[in-house]
């Protein structure tokens, strides 16, 4: 048995909205054509239409115009632990940039990461294995 399509669509829609999507469409020349969504959730000023996208959002430098069919950049920390997942999608003469909240997953990953790293040495023991025979600080 599978869930009816209308329920799947409703779940997708609600799950999507819970992640505070913010988006913009950028011309191949790097100019913002359309903007929408929850920019205030990320403490980012709403990008200005007709402004250069890389000036408004410097993390897009090098990424647009998009040269691949799709890019996914998970867990970008835009400052003060505001984590976003970024999707880049080409569409005819525009590139779409979509940001969604990744705060919850990032917090989980941070604790898993800290646990893993606490089990591994980050400093050589006194003088035995360092590149230059260094000990602990």
């Amino acid at each position, binding site marked *: 048995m599978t869930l009816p399509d209308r329920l799947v669509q409703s779940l997708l829609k609600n799950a999507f909205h819970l992640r505070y999507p913010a988006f913009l469409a950028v011309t191949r020349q790097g100019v913002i054509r359309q903007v929408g969504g929850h920019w205030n959730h990320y403490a980012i000023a709403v990008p200005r239409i007709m402004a250069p996208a890389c*000036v408004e959002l410097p993390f897009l430098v*090098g*990424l647009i115009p998009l040269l691949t069919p799709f890019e*996914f*950049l998970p867990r970008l920390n835009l400052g003060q632990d505001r984590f976003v997942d970024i999707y880049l999608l080409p569409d005819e003469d525009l590139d779409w940039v979509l940001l969604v909240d990744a705060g919850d997953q990032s917090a989980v990953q941070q604790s898993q990461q800290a646990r893993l790293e606490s089990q591994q040495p980050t400093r050589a023991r006194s003088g035995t294995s360092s590149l*230059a025979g*260094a000990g602990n600080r």
Partner: protein
Amino acid sequence: MLQKKMCMLGAFAVGKTSLVSRFVHSVFSDRYLTTVGVKIDKEIVSVAGVDVMMILWDIHGEDDLQEVRPSYLRGMHGYLLVSDITRPATLQTALELHERARGVVGDVPCAFLINKCDLVGPQETELLIAGLNLPMRCFGTSAHNGTHVESAFEFLAEQVSGGSTS
């Protein structure tokens, strides 16, 4: 203003975040907090009288849980490879990341940072760097006391913008 994307690459806990923090904010903290995903920062450097905005991608350390994604490297203009002078394995990790970076963006400017050199002293660091015979410019750095941090970032800024810093 020129804008250039630059990535920090290396194993976990080699000091990538501390190097960025030292360069951008002139601070160092002994408190270690692992980087998840990518932390974005920016700093303006003057190269031959032209302001260059360095968009710094401080990418999480490579380990069992997190592998550096090619999408993070896409479009970068240059990168710094970072290793920890007290952990020989981190040198190999940095060199592996160098090969992967070249696979994504080709030959773009880069430099090698052997960090935490305050733990061994300048002479040993210089001897070590000479002995490594790396095929790129190498700096013995210390985010802890600031040694060669600014010069390493400025070197990369010069390389990606084809001038000299002022």
